[in-house]
Each structure stands twice: as structure tokens, then as C-alpha cells.
């Protein structure tokens, strides 16, 4: 089924709710880069005129059978780490290089360019020379049975599935020809070299079973790969492969059991750290691209930066995997986990460095959930000051999945707008100046910047503060055009409490998880029923269960058939 008719119905509503805010551009065309690129695609608001997404009722849409996620049949290019994990199955003692091919978000759209093709070619040649050959291939001439067995084995490891009869015939024919020209050992290594670069290795398919209808189901092997790469960034392990082979994987109880098992692996924890890195927009801080001014923030050393990121990622993954917490706990918790390796951070936060990994409470009222962690607050800030734009966009897009159009052409020239000539102006004063001096920007900025005023208690390096340029901080903030969350909030904790308890944030988080696991870019407001179902309608579903529901949802294994 093509995209639900809901999409066309939502667009005018979105535009009505955000006059001049370019919602249509986000829906219909790739968005030009915003001031800071949204890690996840912004979702159009659910709001109806005069009301917001929190007040809309998905039940009506669900009753009509619409509003669910439909993904097309597609090819996904493996990321560098995924390909390395796959190639490692050939010879675990010879670690493959991790090449730069694509990232998760672009896996279904990226193509191999000449640089990647050359790197793949060189690496395949290197790995092929290191791959152990069975005895029957080391002396000429090998018989066809030996060659076929070898080809089946290599194919199974690299393709994550058995070879089709056509593939086997083609590879064996090619092997014979190479054997005639160059002898058995060279032919065997060249076969490995070729299979390492063939599309069955480099891409995973989600084409499904042959179908005469509009939809198709992923094959068992495709489903196993989808689950394995989604959770662990590696090809299916033996138990998962076995479930695919015996035809039971599509059974919900088996799929749940396999996913639950994989979630307990270190690889899954590592992958979830990447999810939270992206969700919390920590990438530029982690990579060092965002550097803090040593003049403005002398205490924010490299050690503190690394430890703050580690602390946040450990907290978030523990909450999801070990504490089985829900989104509200993630967004409002007054505790974290610190170990002896975070001594610099602990001291900077006014805490005694623990001697072992310990659950610790933040100093009273100074932190309120993951958004207020030092890493997140410094990532959502400029090198030398806070940023209402970065923080506001995070709240608006990242937590609430509300849309913001691309900045208009020419906006970059005034991207430092909002700073007036008074060097002692507070952030709020700068914002008021910006409102007056740049009225053309306000159709969008007046939506997402005001909520961020609630977070002014945390400076540009994430430290708690009570004054801004020597003046008391006014943390009152206004939210509008969301519906249920609209209103005045006294400070960050009050705002975060409200967000944590909202269906809007709950559905948004589920949408992010679904996008992450399925590596799709479909705005989930085009599939609100899927989002709501994954999130759970009562607000009590733990995050790990939301994740499992996303894997078990029919959308995960159903694709629109290739015409």
C-alpha cells in the first residue's frame, strides 16, 4: 500500500499550525541543512488548527486501518562496522579494516562511489590472501565437489544466507575458469576476493518473498539479518541463523526470544550507545568537532568532556537495558552512575569520586533527567555560551518530533543573530533583542526557542548556575502550538516533567527507536498508529519493551512489493 492518505490530510494542518514555517518543504523534499542538522528527520506536527498533537486522537485514524508504517522493498548498504563484522566471519584471526561506506541513516540511499569501490577492492584483495583455504584447495587440481563446498561455505558466511542455485552455478563456473588460467589456490583466493565485493555481501536486501500483491514479507534470512544488524551491528549469530533456517523466526514468540537474547549481548549495548549518542545529539561533542572555549569554560577539560559523555551513555543504556525503565525515568531521574574513571567529572559536579561503579544522586535540584546531564547541555550549546536554538530544536524536534522548516536562504549570514551589543546581556535579553531585530525569523524561532529558556540554569559547558552575566536567571518558559503541552513552565524540571508524561514525547521516542532499528527515514507522524502502539497507550511501557515491540510490529517484516 502506498503512503496513507493521512499524509495529504496532515500537510495543510501542519501548515496551518506553523504559518511561514516551511513544513511543506520538510514533507516533500530533502531538507537543506539547518543550523544544526537534526539527527532524525523532523516530523510534521499532529496538530489540528487551534490544537496540538497532544490533543489529537489517533484512535480514529487507527480505526480506519490507516496511519501505520509501510516501508518499501529496498537495498541497504552495510556500514563499515557491519561489513567488517561480516568479513570477520571468514577469518576471525585477521581483523578486517573498518571502511567508511555509509552511516545507518543513509544505508538505504547511499551508493558506492569510486573511493569506496577502490577501498573495497584493496581490502578484499588483502583479506582474500589471509583467508585459510581448505586442504583440498591448496594443491591442484581441486575437484568440483571441493570447490562447491568451499563456495557454499564462503557464501554462507558473507551473504548471511545459503547461496541460490544460480549464484552457486555462476560462482562455480567462474572458479573453474580461473582454475584453468591460474591454478586452484589462486582461483580459490580470487573467488573469495570477488565474493567479498559482490552485492550479496555489501548490501542486505529487504525485497521479500515473491508476491503478486502490494505487500510482501521478508524472507527468513532477510528477517534474521534485519534483527541482527539492528540490535548488534553484526550478521546473525548461530542461534538466530538456526531459527531462520528452521522457519520459526517469524513466529512472534521465537522472534521475541531471539531479540531478547541479543539485547543482552555487549554488542547490543554498544549499538544502543550509538542510538543515544544520536538521539541526544552528542556526536559533535564526542568527535571533538565542538570544542569549548578554554577562556569561557576553563573547567571543561578534555577529560571532563569524555567522562561526561561516558556517564550519559552509561546512564541511558543502563536505564533501558538493566533498569527496564520507561521514558519518564530517563527524562526525570535524579540519579546517575559514576565510576572511578569519572573522577574529574564527579569533582566538577561537586561529588565525591566513587571508588567503584555506583549509583549516585545528583546534588539536589541541579540535574533532572538525561537532558540536563553535563554532556547534553554542553553539546546543545555554542563553544562559549548557551544556545536557545540548539536546545530548543532538540526539545522541539528531538523530544517532541515537531517539525521546523529549513532556515531560509541567507539565514547563514546572520546565524549568530540574537546577540546584542551589550556584552553583559543575559541569554534572555539577547533573545528579546533577537525577537525585535529579526521579526522574519520568528515564525519558526518563536516556537522552539522559548521552551529552551527553561534550561538556562545549565551553562554552555553543562555546569549548573544561578546567574547569567551576574544577573539572576529567569527560567520561565512558554510552550505553544503543541496542544497538550502548551502553557507556562517555571523552570527546566517542570517542563521536563510535563514532557516526560506526555503522549507526544512517548510516541516520539518510539518513532526514533523504530527509525533506528529499521534504518528508515519515514516521518512517523505518517504512521501515528504505529508510533502509539509501540509506545504503549498507558505510558507505562519500559523502553526495552518499546524496542522489542518495534521489532515485533508487522511493519518491521513487511515491505511494499517491487512493482
Amino acid at each position: 500500500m502506498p503512503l496513507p492518505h493521512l499524509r495529504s490530510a496532515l500537510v495543510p494542518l501542519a501548515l496551518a499550525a506553523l504559518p511561514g514555517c516551511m513544513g511543506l518543504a520538510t514533507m516533500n523534499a530533502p531538507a537543506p541543512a539547518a543550523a544544526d542538522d537534526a539527527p532524525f528527520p523532523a516530523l510534521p506536527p499532529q496538530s489540528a488548527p487551534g490544537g496540538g498533537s497532544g490533543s489529537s486522537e489517533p484512535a480514529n485514524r487507527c480505526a480506519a486501518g490507516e496511519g501505520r508504517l509501510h516501508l518499501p522493498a529496498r537495498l541497504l548498504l552495510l556500514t563499515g562496522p557491519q561489513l567488517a563484522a561480516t568479513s570477520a566471519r571468514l577469518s576471525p584471526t585477521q581483523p578486517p579494516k573498518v571502511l567508511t561506506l555509509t552511516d545507518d541513516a543513509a544505508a538505504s540511499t547511499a551508493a558506492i562511489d569510486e573511493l569506496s569501490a577502490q577501498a573495497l577492492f584493496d581490502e578484499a584483495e588483502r583479506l582474500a590472501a589471509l583467508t585459510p583455504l581448505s586442504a583440498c584447495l591448496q594443491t591442484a587440481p581441486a575437484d568440483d565437489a571441493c570447490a562447491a563446498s568451499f563456495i557454499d561455505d564462503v557464501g554462507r558466511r558473507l551473504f548471511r544466507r545459503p547461496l541460490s542455485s544460480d549464484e552457486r552455478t555462476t560462482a562455480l563456473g567462474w572458479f573453474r575458469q580461473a582454475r584453468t588460467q591460474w591454478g586452484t589456490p589462486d582461483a580459490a583466493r580470487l573467488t573469495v576476493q570477488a565474493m567479498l565485493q559482490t552485492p550479496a555481501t555489501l548490501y542486505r536486501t529487504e525485497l521479500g518473498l515473491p508476491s503478486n500483491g502490494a505487500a510482501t514479507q521478508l524472507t527468513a534470512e532477510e528477517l534474521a539479518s534485519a534483527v541482527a544488524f539492528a540490535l548488534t551491528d553484526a550478521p546473525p549469530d548461530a542461534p538466530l541463523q538456526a531459527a531462520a533456517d528452521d522457519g520459526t523466526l517469524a513466529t512472534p514468540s521465537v522472534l521475541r526470544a531471539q531479540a531478547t537474547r541479543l539485547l543482552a549481548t555487549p554488542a547490543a549495548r554498544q549499538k544502543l550507545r550509538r542510538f543515544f549518542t544520536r538521539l541526544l545529539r552528542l556526536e559533535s561533542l564526542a568527535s571533538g568537532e565542538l570544542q569549548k572555549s578554554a577562556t569561557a569554560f576553563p573547567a571543561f577539560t578534555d577529560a571532563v568532556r569524555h567522562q561526561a559523555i561516558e556517564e550519559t551513555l552509561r546512564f541511558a543504556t543502563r536505564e533501558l537495558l538493566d533498569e527496564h525503565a520507561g521514558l519518564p525515568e530517563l527524562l526525570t531521574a535524579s540519579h546517575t552512575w559514576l565510576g572511578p574513571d569519572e573522577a574529574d567529572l564527579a569533582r566538577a559536579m561537586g561529588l565525591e569520586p566513587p571508588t567503584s561503579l555506583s549509583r549516585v544522586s545528583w546534588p539536589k535540584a541541579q540535574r533532572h533527567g538525561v537532558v540536563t546531564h553535563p554532556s547534553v547541555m554542553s553539546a546543545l550549546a555554542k563553544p562559549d555560551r548557551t544556545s536557545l536554538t540548539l536546545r530548543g530544536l532538540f526539545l522541539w524536534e528531538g523530544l517532541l518530533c515537531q517539525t521546523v522548516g529549513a532556515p531560509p536562504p541567507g539565514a547563514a549570514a546572520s546565524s549568530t543573530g540574537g546577540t546584542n551589543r551589550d556584552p553583559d546581556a543575559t541569554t534572555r535579553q539577547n533573545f528579546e533583542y533577537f525577537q525585535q531585530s529579526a521579526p522574519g525569523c520568528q515564525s519558526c524561532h518563536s516556537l522552539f526557542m522559548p521552551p529552551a529558556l527553561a534550561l538556562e540554569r545549565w551553562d554552555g559547558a553543562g555546569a549548573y548556575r544561578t546567574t547569567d552575566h551576574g544577573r539572576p536567571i529567569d527560567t520561565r518558559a512558554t510552550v505553544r502550538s503543541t496542544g497538550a503541552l502548551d502553557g507556562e513552565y517555571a523552570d527546566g524540571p517542570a517542563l521536563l516533567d510535563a514532557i516526560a508524561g506526555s503522549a507526544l514525547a512517548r510516541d516520539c521516542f518510539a518513532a526514533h527507536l523504530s527509525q533506528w532499528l529499521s534504518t528508515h527515514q519515514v516521518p512517523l507522524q505518517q504512521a501515528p498508529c504505529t508510533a502509539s502502539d509501540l509506545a504503549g497507550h498507558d505510558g507505562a511501557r519500559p523502553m526495552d519493551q518499546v524496542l522489542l515491540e518495534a521489532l515485533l510490529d508487522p511493519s518491521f517484516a513487511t515491505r511494499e512489493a517491487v512493482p
Partner: protein
Amino acid sequence: MTLRRRDVLRGLVTAPFLAAAARAAGTAPAGNFLVFFTPNGFARSQFGADLSNGALAFRPSLAALAPYASRVSVLTGLCLKSCDLNYGSHENVVQLLTCRPVAPGTYTASGPSIDTVIAQRTGTPALNLAADPVRGDAPFETQISYRAAGVPSPVVASPAQTYASLSAELTSSAPGALDARRLAQRKSVLDFVRGDLATLKARVGAADRQRLDLHLAALREVERKLDASAPVAPSCDATGAQAASQAALPSEQIARLKAAAERQADLIALAFACGVRRSATLVMGAAIGGVDPSGSGYTHHDVTHFCAGDGPAGHCAELPTRRPAIDRWYGDRFAYLLGRLDALGVLANTMVVWATEISQEHSPSNFTTVVAGGNALGLKLGQRLALPFTGNDDAGAGNAAVARDSRNRSLADLWATAQAATGGPVAPFGDASFSSGPLPELYQRP
């Protein structure tokens, strides 16, 4: 005597001989083309050159170019006429080398850039490099090169990766250097992969077929490199290039930028000298997010706003020294680049242009442009060329009217000059509305 193209490219023949030979043959000598891009314009009072007793006298920011005074021309007056009211600022980056207006809301180019056009004509890929791995907040900050409308050229920011992309051609350039058996095996592997790609194409939808077509095109490029072979010339000596390009870069940001810039410059010169590339771009920094190499701790862009209402407060007094310091730092890198080209014997047949996206204060008018090298190609060097300019060049973003004033000269004509000087047609470049052909003040075909 037979004039071999590869010898010409490698600088094995002298510039006068090259020009004479070309004249005798009635053709344009084949040349190389290189754009050195730095963002945010220049502090023009300290940048550029004046004439002193008929010779170029460089202003302080270009002091490092003194040894090359006879091989440099400094132009003023060119305008980026393709910019319009909506794209008159740092967004000029995307049209700087295309000189075609950008479709509103796209932030991407409307046609191929000059480096691509030259590369395609000469049958070698363009070498598109960056010195700063920080790509900025948006593509328009650094992406000057485009393969076609909406198709940005891949840019390599790591010298090690640059070397990797060239290594096959640099190290296997002699016939027979690559064992014939090995070559046949490698080509056979590529055939196998291509066959599988063709099979898969039949099973997927239209969008995925396009992706697989690009993959196939990439494999053709791998094969082309395998086929590339040529005798190794003295100026084409890749010994040590691998180790030099792969050595660890300094961790400190500015030292890293300097080292990366110089290593990329080394590889560009080597690629030109070996005849494996004819066209290149080197992007030194991002328009908004790029580092200030003079060490203020702010971005280069922030420094240019030190005295503006939207810049970091309290630094206005630093502006008169800070901006020239940035330009001077880049000038030193530019001089290094010229030195490497000269050392490998290819400066005379390489047209090098130092370009930026705004002349000053977001204006697209009256650029100061440094052109170096290429005297064997017909470029007139050692000049201060003050092209006629009418209007206010300090009018801020989007001043298309001044740029498009018919009395003002077009930056597109500089690229038309490059097109002609590197052996291409004597013809306009980019949007036909904004180009009339090569600049006669700068170029005369030998």
C-alpha cells in the same frame, strides 16, 4: 621531436619549449588547474598587491608570495554575477565554481563546477581535497565542487586517504610494473562483481537501480586505474609519499590544519607531476564553522563579525590585526603550494587560483583574486589587474544588482580563462548570461 603529453604534464619540458611547441602545432598546451579555497573573504587593506616600479609589491598578508612575484597576478573587480538576492553570502560557496544561479531552497549547485569540466575534458577525475576535516554546519560552507547539478563531488579531507586514492596509479604507472597475470586476475574479479550487480539490478526498484548504476560506474573507475600505465619520470617520484601522507597528524587543531594542508598540497603536486590528475581543488576551511588558524579560539567566521552586532562581543579592537593574521596564515600555505608545484616542475603549466566566496561583508562584488602559475599556458603574470568596477562593493549580502552591473566583469570569465588555458575551448563558462569568455587582460592563447 615528438612532444609527449605525459612529459608535458610532468614538466619534463621547459615552459618556453612547451609554448613554442604548442604554437608550432597550432594547439593550446595542455595544462593543469587548481583552486585553493579559503572562506570568508579577505581583509583587503592588507591583502592583494600594488605596483612598485612596474613590479608587483605584495601587501603584508601575501608577503610569502614575494619569491613568486613574476609568476603571480592579482586581480580586482571580478563579480559573482550568478548570485541573486537570496544567495549573496556564504551560500556563494555552492556557485563559486559553477557560476550558475542556485535554485531557491536547494543549497546545491545548478551545474558542474569548472574543476569537473576541466577534469572530464582531460579524461582524469578531479582531485577534490580539504585540509580541515570540520565540514561546517551545512554543505554550502565547503562544497565548491560539483559533478553535475545537485551532485556534490566527494571530498577527501585525510591525506592518507588522498594517497590511497592515488596510490594505484602512482605506483603502477610503468608498463609491466603490475604483473600482467595479476592485472588479468584483478580485472577478472571486477567482471565477476559487475555480473552480480547486473543480476541484482533486475530485482530491485528504480531508486535502487540508480544506486547500483553508480556502483557500476565506480567499478569502471577502479578498472581505469588498473589500466593506467606510464613510464615513471624523474619529477614523478612517489617514494616516501605513502609514509608522509600516513604519518600521524598533530593533535593540536591549528598544527593539524597546517600539516594536513601541506600534505594535501604535496599530493596534488605529485598527482600533477605524474600526469594522473589534471584538475584539483583544495578547501582550507568551512565558511561558518571553520577554525581561525590565527588562534583566537573563535571560528574564522566569528572573527569577521568581531565588530558586528551579531558577533561575539568584546573583541572589536582585535579585528584590524586578527583578520590579516588569518589571511597571512593562509598566504603562507598558498606559498607552500606554489613551492611544491615549482619543485616538481609543474607550476609553469598549472593555473592556480586562490578563491573565496565573498569579497567582504558578504558582498559578491569586486573580488580580490590571486592567480599563479601557468605562464606556459598563456597566462599573463606579474600583473596587478584592476578591472573596471562600478558600484558599492560593501553593500552587504545579496547585492546582486551591483554584481550584475553590465560594466562589471564576471568571475565566470576567470573560469572561462581556466577552461581555455588548460586546453579547452575559448568559450564562455557557466550561465551564458554571465560570461563572455576568457579575460584578455589575463590570457592569450600561445
